[in-house]
């Protein structure tokens, strides 16, 4: 068994993992999720089988960190008396690019699994068997997640 230096995973995948997190967890949460993803990966790395698909493994960790962040944010949310009709954009911290495509906001309204499914399939073109590994489900379920996600996004657009 021979694993490549962890740095080679960072070199090959840190960019796409970061973009995935910006798109699915949001620009505010992305930095934390990114660090959590790589720390978890590094902790588990010596036990990984070298035959394993390392890219799918990394995306699976990232997807789970995005879900964790989503839940944590839900817990932190302060209840308000009047919920506005449309969700207000999160306050932008200093220096953050507000000029973000609306579509990501819509993607982030999807259930976390569909978010990851849509992004990995439609943007990255990840094949379905890899996607199933990444989403920890069957191929058919992965296909359904992509389909459902895209359907919702389309309905959103045509409303």
């Amino acid at each position, binding site marked *: 068994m*021979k*694993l*490549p*230096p*962890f*740095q*080679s995973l*960072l070199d090959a995948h*840190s*960019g796409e993992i*970061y*973009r995935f997190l*910006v*798109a699915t967890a949001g620009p505010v949460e992305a*930095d934390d999720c*990114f*660090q959590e993803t*790589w*720390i978890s990966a*590094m*902790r588990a*790395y*010596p036990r990984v089988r070298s035959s394993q698909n390392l890219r799918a493994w990394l995306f699976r960790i990232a997807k789970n960190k995005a879900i964790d962040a989503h839940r944590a944010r839900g817990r932190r949310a302060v209840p308000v008396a009047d919920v506005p009709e449309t969700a207000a954009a999160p306050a932008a911290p200093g220096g953050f690019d507000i000029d*973000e*495509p609306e*579509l*990501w906001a819509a*993607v982030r309204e999807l259930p976390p699994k569909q978010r990851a499914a*849509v*992004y990995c399939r*439609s*943007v990255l073109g990840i094949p379905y068997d890899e996607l199933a590994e990444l989403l920890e489900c069957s191929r058919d379920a992965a296909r359904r997640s992509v389909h459902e996600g*895209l*359907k919702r*996004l*389309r309905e959103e*657009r045509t409303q």
Partner: protein
Amino acid sequence: MNEIEEMLRRDASRLPAEVPVALHESLAERAAKEGLLDVAYAELDSPIGPLAVAGTTRGLVRLSYAPAEEIAEELAVKLSPRVIRSPAKLDDVRRELDEYFEGKRTEFDVPVDWSLSRGFFRRVLERTARIRYGQVGTYAQVAKEAGSPRAVRAAGNALNANPVPIVVPCHRILRTGGDLGGYGGGVDRKEFLLKLEGVIGV
């Protein structure tokens, strides 16, 4: 459905192209804090070409004239796959080497992690480490001091396999009679180092 996918792909091109540099640095920092950074490596400049250096929590474990990626591969196999590029973790090594090449340092204070050397090889290298700046020894001498006076050739092999040249000064070992002998990084580098230390004339 295709229309939405096209829009997603178009919007994806506006996502950040690069991971912010600060994020990489804080990642290495946090990994070190959590005891996950087994090997940190970096590439340094020197008058004798780029040097790859690598450290563990115990000290400098590897210095090489080979490309940094090559030693990262080597250490992933020999020590741990948790190998990360982190110039900040090797700041002390860089500073000391800079001072050495400027002629301002005659001894290294960074600790050496000996874990890549064993047995006779290690004993040869430990003896070699005691030879001071500006002094030289011979292959026969270190072989004898390492406990095997007849293993002169093996002592040469040990020095050739020195995982931390310069800092463990294998360049200070010459043939009996004063001939320069060989050097893992090429004899030109050995000559440069001996001139720097004033052992041979410029």
